[in-house]
């Protein structure tokens, strides 16, 4: 039996079905992302697991034990909130020590575990600061340390990086992945950012309107999307009708080719994006997005007639 098992977990708010019979099995040590647009039910799912929202029906078991009948305090989960939800009136050390204090851990052990957790997230020097005096990235690390220090059975991350700027977010992704590998905690991440989900997870759960669209490895879901929704949500995609059949092609798989092969088209727009060029090509079966790496070669200009193939 898997470590965490969600079976037909459902949440209704009045007539609205927020989460519709979600079933999922997560293995110990796995990093799984719930990915979807806002309102798809991913956060509600996380809150049902955490115990902040009561499930309408279905079950959730952790190591074979029913999770839903436990109070949030008993579930032993580490949670990092989107707003970080740090205690503003406590220093970093006090924040991180709070969970240990609630568990009756002795002062000496508390101190060494807090120091260990702060070292893990690289904040040992800021132990006596108050959260208001820290940057978003630092607060985020405190929240992570606070969640990990109690040695949670599962780490729940609710859009943990969405309040950071793009560059910092990328750094934190790498760091988060490293930390998770180090401590080996089973992790469930909720995010609307497909790049983040793909970068971090062993498996992604793509959700839409309360239902699971696909559960797969990130590369699998990207290359072989189970539904048009998954294809469109995981990066840019072209849907073309070729010879009466609908095909889905990723923009980076399309190349320009010589006269006599491929599909004719005209470059409607060309946008430089540093490491790659983005083209909009008008063809007989509609507009096609093409992404070509910037290899320093000569590139077609706007208005050029080209031929594309994949």
């Amino acid at each position, binding site marked *: 039996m898997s470590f965490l098992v969600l079976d037909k977990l459902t949440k209704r708010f009045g007539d609205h079905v927020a989460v519709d019979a979600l079933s999922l099995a997560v293995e110990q040590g796995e990093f799984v992302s719930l990915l979807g647009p806002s309102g798809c039910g991913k956060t509600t799912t996380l809150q049902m697991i*955490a*115990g*902040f929202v009561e499930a309408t029906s279905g079950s959730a078991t952790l190591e074979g034990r029913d999770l839903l009948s436990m*109070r*949030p*305090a*008993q*579930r*032993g*989960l*580490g*949670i990092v*909130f*989107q*707003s970080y*939800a*740090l*205690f*503003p*009136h406590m220093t970093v050390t006090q924040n991180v020590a*709070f*969970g240990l204090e*609630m*568990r009756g851990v002795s002062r000496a052990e508390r101190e060494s575990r807090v120091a260990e957790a702060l070292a893990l997230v690289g904040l040992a020097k800021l132990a006596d600061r*108050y959260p*208001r*005096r820290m940057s978003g990235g630092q607060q985020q690390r405190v929240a992570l340390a*606070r969640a990990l220090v*109690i040695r949670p059975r599962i780490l729940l991350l609710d859009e943990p990086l969405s309040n950071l700027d793009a560059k910092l977010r990328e750094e934190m992704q790498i760091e988060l992945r490293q930390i998770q590998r180090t401590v080996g905690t089973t992790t469930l991440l909720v995010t609307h950012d497909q790049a983040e989900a793909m970068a971090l997870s062993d498996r992604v759960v793509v959700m839409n309107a309360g239902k699971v669209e696909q559960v797969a490895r990130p590369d699998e879901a990207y290359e072989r999307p189970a539904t048009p929704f998954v294809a469109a949500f995981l990066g840019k995609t072209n849907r073309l009708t070729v010879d009466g059949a609908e095909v889905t092609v990723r923009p980076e798989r399309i190349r320009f080719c010589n006269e006599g092969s491929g599909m004719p088209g005209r470059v409607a727009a060309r946008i430089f994006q540093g490491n790659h060029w983005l083209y909009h090509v008008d063809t007989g079966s509609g507009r096609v997005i093409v992404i070509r790496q910037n290899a320093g070669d000569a590139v077609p200009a706007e208005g050029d007639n080209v031929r594309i193939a994949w």
Partner: protein
Amino acid sequence: MTAVDPHPGPLPRQRVTLRPWLLSLPALVLFAAVVVTPLVMTVVLSFHDFSTMGGIKPVFILKNWHDVFTDEYYREMFGRTIRIALWVTAICAVAGAPEAYILSRMSARWRGIFLLAILGPLLISVVARTLGWALLFGGATGVVNQALMKLGLLSRPLPFMFTETGMVVALSHVLVPFMVLSVWAALQRLDPQVENAALSLGASHATVLTRVVLPQAMPGVLSGAIIVFSLAASAFATPAIIGGRRLKVASTLAYDEFLNTLNWPLGAAVAVLLLAGIAAIVFGANRLVERRYASVFE
């Protein structure tokens, strides 16, 4: 982080610094005319002499101040004023802070209704509200006293009129909305997820309240306490109605000196001392709050 302006322009001329003063001039003139001037005149008045025969004499003497500070009678009045204000502040904090927390946890619709219920009384004159208490508890004819006596729960009416307890009860009733609003404002800034975070870390609901919610509400409780204390210490209508002339506080004492004894200089000394006392306590408390919470809340 240091931001460096890549295109530093010419420095603004110094003349500009005059503008804020010019802009606030009308307000400053009004303030000087209607607040500072009468206040200074009151202070000056407190040093004048008074006799029943000769009236007010514009001389400089310390008699009034000497009386106010040494006479047991005045000490009793000021002691009572501070005692009542402290009790009212404590009761408002104990009643108002939980009320504000419950309010902040309500759904928007119910919150609107309850907020109206809390603030509604502020629309009614303090005199009317205090007279209401007098009707309920005023001696043997008070409605509640009569009912309780008829039920056999009391043999004598509850003493309310002309008691400090009566003043404290009536003033708390009048002032508790200020505490609720102040604490509520502090709780508005509280991230609702913070309570969930504490729960997930193993805290019980009681621990969440004492360790997480209350400390964050404390700046609101303290600023509410400052408001309630200063309003209670300077209240006039409620002590005048409940305490009458039998049980005076500083403000009713000053009123009596001005309008009954006609000893304006003495009344002025009492009024100035009351003002200075409240100002000292309020500024002191404010400084304390700011220092205590500066690093936590901006």
